[in-house]
């Protein structure tokens, strides 16, 4: 979706503010929100792409006003309700509906190290060989899906060069909507800074963007 999250190249966001000796979490609620999101995610009711998309659905004005972990909180509440781990009524009252059996088995502290070190592999084996080869010229398709996509707006319609093939990966545009993994080849594509931004950019510089096969066409 052409949301405000797709920020590459926007102006007016101000200078980058670097904080010295920054804590991992700035307040206890941030850490709790982070941990609740991972622990609830362990139920497997959503995937990473759906999680990213839920944040993109926050209306633009709110998105920009919110801090990072506030967005995480909103996302968690929405996913819990949409994926029916918790009802809207329970979220409203703050209590479990009487008679609903307790969920089991929940993630325990002892399982945390294994959960984190296992991660979640997004790579998939693909039988067909890659459509593009390193050095080949390609164009990022000029598409504007209303749903989730990882094709940033600033690259659409621009020409680049395949830098390297990265392997097969789950396709976020379908996976985010629970429409299947549709695995396909991913390439790192090199775009000259001037192709993206015109003459104001340095003639030497480049932006590398990881792109799924569906985002590309031969140039």
């Amino acid at each position, binding site marked *: 979706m052409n949301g405000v999250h797709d920020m590459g190249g926007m102006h007016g966001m101000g200078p980058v*503010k*670097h904080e010295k000796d920054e804590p991992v979490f700035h307040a206890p609620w941030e850490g709790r929100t982070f941990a609740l999101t991972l622990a609830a995610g362990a139920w497997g009711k959503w995937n990473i792409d759906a999680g990213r998309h839920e944040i993109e659905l926050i209306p633009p004005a709110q998105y920009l*006003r919110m801090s*990072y972990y506030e967005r995480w909180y909103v996302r968690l509440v929405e996913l819990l309700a949409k994926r029916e781990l918790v009802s809207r009524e329970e979220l409203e009252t703050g*209590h479990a509906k009487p008679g609903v059996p307790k969920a089991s088995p929940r993630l325990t*502290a002892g399982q945390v190290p294994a959960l984190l070190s296992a991660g979640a592999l997004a790579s998939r084996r693909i039988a067909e060989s890659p459509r593009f080869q390193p050095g080949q010229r390609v164009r990022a398709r000029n598409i504007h899906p209303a749903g989730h996509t990882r094709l940033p707006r600033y690259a659409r319609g621009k020409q680049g060069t395949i830098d390297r093939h990265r392997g097969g990966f789950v396709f976020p545009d379908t996976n985010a909507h629970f429409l299947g993994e549709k695995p396909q080849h991913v390439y790192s594509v090199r775009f000259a800074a001037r192709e993206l931004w015109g003459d104001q950019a340095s003639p030497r510089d480049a932006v590398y963007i990881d792109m799924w096969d569906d985002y590309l066409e031969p140039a």
Partner: protein
Amino acid sequence: MPPAEHHDHAHQDVPSDLALRVKALESLLVEKGLVDPAALDALIDTYENKVGPRNGARVVARAWAEPAYKARLLADGTSAIAEFGFSGRQGEHMVVVENTARVHNLIVCTLCSCYPWPVLGLPPVWYKSAAYRSRAVVDPRGVLREFGLEIGEDVEVRVWDSTAELRYLVLPERPAGTDHLSEEDLAALVTRDAMVGVAKVEYPKPGETA
């Protein structure tokens, strides 16, 4: 240090009751049997105390000290980093990009805030900010200048936008005059910012003498 002194940016509009709302959500999820408070503590402890940029610094120091390791690291980041036991969540597919006298690499995620957790921990506020995400791709040299880093016109700046599940780590240039240092001493020089590409590794460390 009280957090209030430090979170003036990007936190200014957090509703005062957010802490209470998070607490209420946690108690609901515990009541429903969906989460275990001890697991939440373990998750927080992991990223506050166990996983952070010191991991990445060890990887960088070994790459500087051992050419064979550096070759493995650049060829297959995930496997070489796993030699230290660093792997998993948000580091499943690691790519290491090398800074040289001719190339300077910078990492960003314009669409959200993807970051290599196993080697750098959770991202700092500036990395997640609209300012960095919007500008790193269009004006990388301007952003680097704000970090105090001037990149010469003869050097190519490569910005890596983390749009897929690949996570990037910058292998900074080894500073001159460090031939006598042990791997451990080298690791102590390496900063998080250098591994994102917004700083160089300095020797001696700023404010110290060799």
